[in-house]
């Protein structure tokens, strides 16, 4: 497809040679870091040794930091996008890029006033710009800071493709989703083990004739009950949310509510009842409880939300603005919030990403490390992180 008729590519040989020697001898060049152009020391540009998100600042922008794999399993049992999980498995390391929207959010979170009602932050942007990974960065930070993390990996999973819907025992009008709820409870348990014994329930909950949870028992019991008795899983989730909301104001822990694809909570579902009548999101117990969580009538934490068109139902492909994706109802409910735009890579971040792939020997094409190759990738992906990742997978 790329045919040439005798045009000599002058840049190829020079740049290839240049960068090749550069990446082979980082030790010599690291000493000259300050006086020379970043291109000459690629390792310094694409990576940073700072693995604590709390200490990330402007100087780390565009660089990848490493998350140890045990942390990964503890903090993100279910939160990472599937392609990223594959990348982690391939490279045997998890590296996230520090980017400006995440840095901005970190700054806000560090300065949160826990006496005020929880502030809502909404990450929005075009498809593939890195909203979910920015959310993961924030979650890692909060985990390091010992917050309690309430992470719903993808709210769209709760409004489509659900097989078993039971009528809720608690409220006859609502519907239960036992499978999704139990899966979420399992992951929640893995993520927040240490809090489950500390937090005590403040009410008595009766499950059925034989089982009940007494007042003052740890939250872990409720979670266990939900996992073992799948029929009551949705109610268990509801209880967890209610308790956490009530007790976050007390100050024992800070609560981070992180929801990916929050536009699923308002809008339409693809689920239907047996008589083929459509179900509105309010009629799903999980959604109903989650909506209560996202309201800012509690304090002691923060709410970070992400909009997503990728998994959404009945939304046009090109919609990415909060107004379009949330609809009037959602927008009014979430208003006021702080919108944070996540955009494509700027040149420095792009360069850093390519360097990272090169270091891990992910790009096998011989033109990949040349200037021309980079320009091609830039044009083809238009600096969109998702597209770039998919393109590089073929090289």
């Amino acid at each position: 497809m790329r045919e040439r008729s005798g045009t000599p590519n002058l840049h190829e040989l020079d740049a290839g040679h240049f960068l090749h020697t550069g990446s082979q001898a980082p030790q010599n060049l690291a000493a000259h870091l300050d006086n020379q152009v970043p291109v000459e020391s690629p390792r310094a540009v694409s990576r940073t040794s700072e693995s604590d998100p709390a200490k990330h600042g402007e100087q780390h922008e565009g660089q990848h930091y490493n998350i140890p794999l045990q942390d990964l399993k503890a903090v993100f049992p279910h939160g990472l996008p599937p392609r990223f999980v594959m990348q982690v498995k391939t490279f045997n390391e998890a590296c996230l890029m520090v980017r400006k929207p995440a840095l901005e959010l970190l700054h806000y979170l560090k300065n949160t006033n826990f006496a005020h009602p929880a502030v809502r932050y909404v990450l929005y942007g075009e498809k593939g710009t890195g909203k979910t990974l920015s959310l993961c960065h924030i979650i890692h930070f909060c985990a390091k800071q010992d917050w309690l993390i309430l992470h719903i990996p993808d709210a769209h999973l709760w409004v489509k493709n659900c097989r078993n819907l039971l009528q809720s025992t608690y409220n006859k009008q609502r519907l239960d989703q036992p499978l999704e709820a139990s899966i979420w409870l399992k992951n929640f348990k893995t993520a927040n083990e240490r809090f489950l014994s500390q937090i005590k329930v403040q009410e008595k909950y009766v499950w059925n004739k034989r089982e009940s949870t007494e007042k003052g028992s740890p939250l872990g019991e409720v979670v266990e009950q939900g996992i073992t008795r799948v029929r009551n899983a949705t109610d268990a989730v509801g209880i967890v949310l209610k308790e956490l909301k009530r007790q976050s104001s007390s100050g024992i822990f800070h609560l981070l509510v992180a929801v990916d694809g929050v536009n699923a909570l308002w809008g339409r579902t693809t689920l239907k009842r047996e008589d083929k009548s459509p179900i509105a999101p309010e009629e799903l117990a999980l959604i109903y409880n989650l909506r209560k969580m996202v309201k800012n009538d509690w304090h002691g934490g923060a709410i970070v939300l992400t909009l997503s068109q990728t998994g959404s139902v009945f939304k046009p492909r090109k919609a990415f603005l909060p107004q379009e994706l949330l609809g009037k109802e959602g927008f009014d409910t979430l208003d006021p919030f702080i919108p944070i735009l996540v955009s494509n890579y700027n040149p420095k971040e792009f360069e850093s990403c390519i360097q990272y792939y090169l270091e891990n020997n992910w790009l096998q094409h011989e033109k990949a490390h040349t200037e021309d190759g980079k320009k091609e990738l830039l044009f083809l992906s238009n600096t969109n992180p998702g597209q770039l990742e998919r393109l590089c997978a073929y090289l």
Partner: protein
Amino acid sequence: MWKGGEDGKPPRKAGRREPRLGPHSWILRLRHTTVVSTKKNIAALRRETYTLDFIKKQIEEFNIGKRHLANMMGEDPETFTQEDIDRAIAYLFPSGLFEKRARPIMKHPEQIFPKQRAIQWGEDGRPFHFLFYTGKPSYYSLMHEAYGKILDVEKHQNQLRAQGLFSEKTKTKDLIGSRWLIKEELEEILVEKLSDQDYAQFIRLLERLLTLQRGGAEEEFVQRFRRSVTIQSKKQLIEPVQYDEQGMAFSRSEGRRKSAEAEAVVYAHGSGRVSVNGTDYLLYFPVTQDREQLMFPFHFLDRLGKHDVACTVSGGGRAAQAGAIRLAVARALCTLVTEEEVEWMRQAGLLTADLRVRERKKPGQEGARRKFTWKKR
């Protein structure tokens, strides 16, 4: 011995009275048969021979018709050229036929009727040409002439050498822009069939003549058999010069592919941003293949991040729109780029419009090519 008729064949009998064969041939039946006998006259079908008188009459008719046509179109009959005739006929008889050769034409009879040999022998049966019995008189006379010229030139050279005025300079005329006649063209000139060896021999003779030092007359003789080859379809591109707007230099052009039409505006200085119908090209073309099509002209010329493009496209499908934009962008880049690079682009095929269109479905078949399932019984 029958007297040689006009075309050198035995005269045909006219008006047979009875059929040649038949079970009841003894019944005399008055039958009006046509002039052509029932047996197929293969000789007549071989070549439609036109007599000289016939051709002359056609030429007169053509000239008169040309004057009539000029009067009809309101132009001067004296200065009415063949191009004017063509234009007038296309105007008066508009035809929608795709095959250009099937449309109505009005050309000089020389170009319409194939060339034929005049009668080769006289009243007494004796041929005119001394080489008639070789079977290819004009070819052999041409070879004779060429060899005669070679001998003349050699004799001249020997004379000069004897006088001591011989100079070794061999002026090599520019043979690059021309080529030898091909065999078909030579056959057309000589109105005879040649074999490959004959043709090769003739070309060898001419080349031998070229190696010798020759004068003007020989040069002219050789040039009769060379055709120029520079019409290489190189200069067929219309490139409007770029114009300015708000101080920014840009160039606009169109492209088409399979019912998709695109118009592209390429700015001379930019950062590589492309917007299609107002939206970013990443959103408009989610498929990588389409973006690669857009990238091709820039990548080929090594100008990936240097131009901004704003284009509009409509019609067609996803790949057709991408192809149309690519053609429009390549054409627009012609104005902003050197001539050499334009030639490279043309050779790479960036400037050729792709005229593949959907083939129509034919009756009796399921699709354009697919036939119905064939069942043996």
